[in-house]
């Protein structure tokens, strides 16, 4: 996040709106707040990173605003809904909402949802993956840390690629066993743990990026750039 991202909040409730603005600002966003549907329709969407839209609005109905936004841009829309009725949520999703949040929600939950929407793929699929000091050339099957090449076995390399393709996401142990371990040999989760342990050592300073996730498996977490 090199530059402050702008978020439009469409929320008619003053208390809730104020809280959301505070929390988003605290999380490092620049929040514009409009309190009714008509103002939301008139708002220029250019340059916005995301819209947080309450479906229950005076003036234009929330879904109308959503339709208007979708007719103009692809910008992510996070819908707030007090309704437990599935059909409204489904309609919102059908009309192009990217996610929804049911009231009451935690401020932390909201920020997490916003961040999830704005999360940009750090690495690319195919070709090469680059994250901080770590560089993976997939086709050439070469890995380097701080430009120093690292010698990896086939399993270790596949394991690293599997984790690096979805950085930040935990990958289930069973999936890794099935897709990474040599199918010819007896592949158990214990074997996987041994491979991970070796990989961590070989990666040196980047070895800590691979974390064990309790009950799930492993995850590659790239620290935020400083």
């Amino acid at each position: 996040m090199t530059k402050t991202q702008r978020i439009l909040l469409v929320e008619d409730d003053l208390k809730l709106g104020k809280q959301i603005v505070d929390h988003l600002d605290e999380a490092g966003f620049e929040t514009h707040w409009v309190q009714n549907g008509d103002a939301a329709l008139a708002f220029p969407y250019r340059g916005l990173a995301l819209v947080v839209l309450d479906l229950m609005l005076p003036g234009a109905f929330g879904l109308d605003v959503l339709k208007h936004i979708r007719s103009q841009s692809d910008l992510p829309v996070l819908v707030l809904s007090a309704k437990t009725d599935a059909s409204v949520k489904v309609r919102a999703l059908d009309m192009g909402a990217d996610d929804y949040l049911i009231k009451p929600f935690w401020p932390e939950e909201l920020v997490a949802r916003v961040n999830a929407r704005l999360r940009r793929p750090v690495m690319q699929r195919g070709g090469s993956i680059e994250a901080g000091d770590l560089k993976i050339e997939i086709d050439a099957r070469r890995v380097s840390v701080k430009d120093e090449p690292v010698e990896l076995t086939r399993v270790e390399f596949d394991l690293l690629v599997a984790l690096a393709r979805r950085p930040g996401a935990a990958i289930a142990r069973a999936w890794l066993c099935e897709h990474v371990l040599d199918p010819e040999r007896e592949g158990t989760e214990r074997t996987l743990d041994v491979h991970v342990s070796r990989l961590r050592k070989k990666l040196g300073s980047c070895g800590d990026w691979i974390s064990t996730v309790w009950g799930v498996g492993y995850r590659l977490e790239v620290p935020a750039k400083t």
Partner: protein
Amino acid sequence: MKLRTRLALIVLVTALPVVAGTTWARARFERHTVEQSMRDIVLARMEDGGRERCEASPETFPEPPWRRGGPGRDERREGFEHGPGGEGEGRPPRPRDAQRANAERRTDPENGASSRGTAPNDTPNDVERVQRAEEPRVGAVPERRPGEPPPEGLRGDPRREPRGEPFGDGRGGRGFDPRRALAGGYPQRTELWAYDANFTSRNPRAPAFPADLKAALAGGEEIASEPWTTELRGEPIEGLQFAMRMPWEEGPCSIMLAQRPDAGPRSAVTDLLWSSIALCGVLLAAVLFAAGPIVGRVRSLTAQVRDSAASRYTTAVDEKGKDEISELARAFNSAGSDVRANLEAVETRERTLRTFVENTSHDVMLPLTVLQGHLSAVQRRVDAGTLPEKEVLRDALEESHYLSSLLQNLSVAAKLEGGEPLLAQHPVDLNALVERAVARQRPIARQKGVQVEFAVPEDTLHVLGDVTFVEQMLSNVIHNAVRYNKEGGHVAVVLEERGADHDEFALRVLDDGPGIPKELRERVVERSFRTDEARSRAPDGLGLGLAIAHDVARRHGLAMTMRESPAGGLEVEFTGRRARLAVEGDGPAA
């Protein structure tokens, strides 16, 4: 319209045309009979010399007998009897006539009983008149000249009517009293007029031929008749006049007009009319009498139905009998028991709802009370100038989180309890659902120091169902794992593809908390949140949440199994078939 009124109307509406038709037919028949007998009489008399007399002196035919003087009365009578008897000759009755009259008199007693003018007796009646007329009063009436007023003392007595202009005097039947004739069968006077084929009479006193009768004869009828009115001392008299063709077609006497100041048959028609009306009356009374018990039973049934309705259909009505009314009663009893069953179902539902609302209020009040307690504790610490305890704040947050979860569960429970089928069958993005459910529980888990992690496959997995229910299902299980975990504990949510073609999926929630003993796990699955004791805060600490999760899973065709997790806590697994979509990625992707 009431039943009896309707029956009475039907009887009347049916009977009246019948009575009218019968009366009309009877009148027609009688008129026809009278016509035929009149024709017979006239023809007989004309053939018996009348024709010759008429053709000899058509200007005077039939000449009034009293012109001839002598025993004019008798002559007159005879003249009547013989029609054109008086031709100025004044001759006595011929023996043949007398014989014939006697012969006819002999037939009289046979028909005497009904001789008041019914049609078949018309002929003897006429004869009778003639015969009676012959008997008395010879010479009782003084002679007088035509047009001379009768002596005052004789007025009113037809037999002694001196003005009684006889047969053919043109003044029409004043020689008798039709009232008496009608009442007692006294002789009537029939006047006879002769016309030629062109309906003109040589006799200047003859009335103009009646137009309707003329038309009828011209139309080919042999005889025709119509009502005719004359006067007797200023009083109108109803009579009949007949027009008939003679067998000969030429001469001044080929068409005869007979005027009879007597509507005799009408009395018989009147009798028929009255007897028919009387019959109608009897029929009406019989119908109304017969309808009485039916009306009574219907009224009794109505009263019973009202009583039954007033008692909310708990009492049945009397079904005795095998007729339609009993069938109605049985039908009512059947309908009544249906209504009763429906009423009971509605009442049960209402009771359930009331209990549900009461329990819900209780369920909500508890966490709210706890929350208020925590918040007051914080307030006290702040007032005392110290920082609030971290644990108290955490508990307050957890309680408010629990409250929110509880309300959502109650909302879901209300829908499930209402027995609604799951109408919504949308593709639910399970990857997004897992991420959302975890994000929801993470804040409170962080407060408790419990780590919540999740893993989803790279491909998006879908299941068909109601997104609200499925999310509630998963949230409940995660919430349960967080809520009963200890600080430093872990919860993991893993969504995996299963099966050879990855057509199935498994969604596991595992923790390293205290777990649930096997027998309690079974109870959670077995019992229903519908029962009162399975409410949110059951003594065993297993609340509404797991029961709802189990119910929602069942309704979506998902298998929910609980086992001990590898870490000794609880592992809940949902397995089912994934929904393959034509176009993937309708929802938020992780």
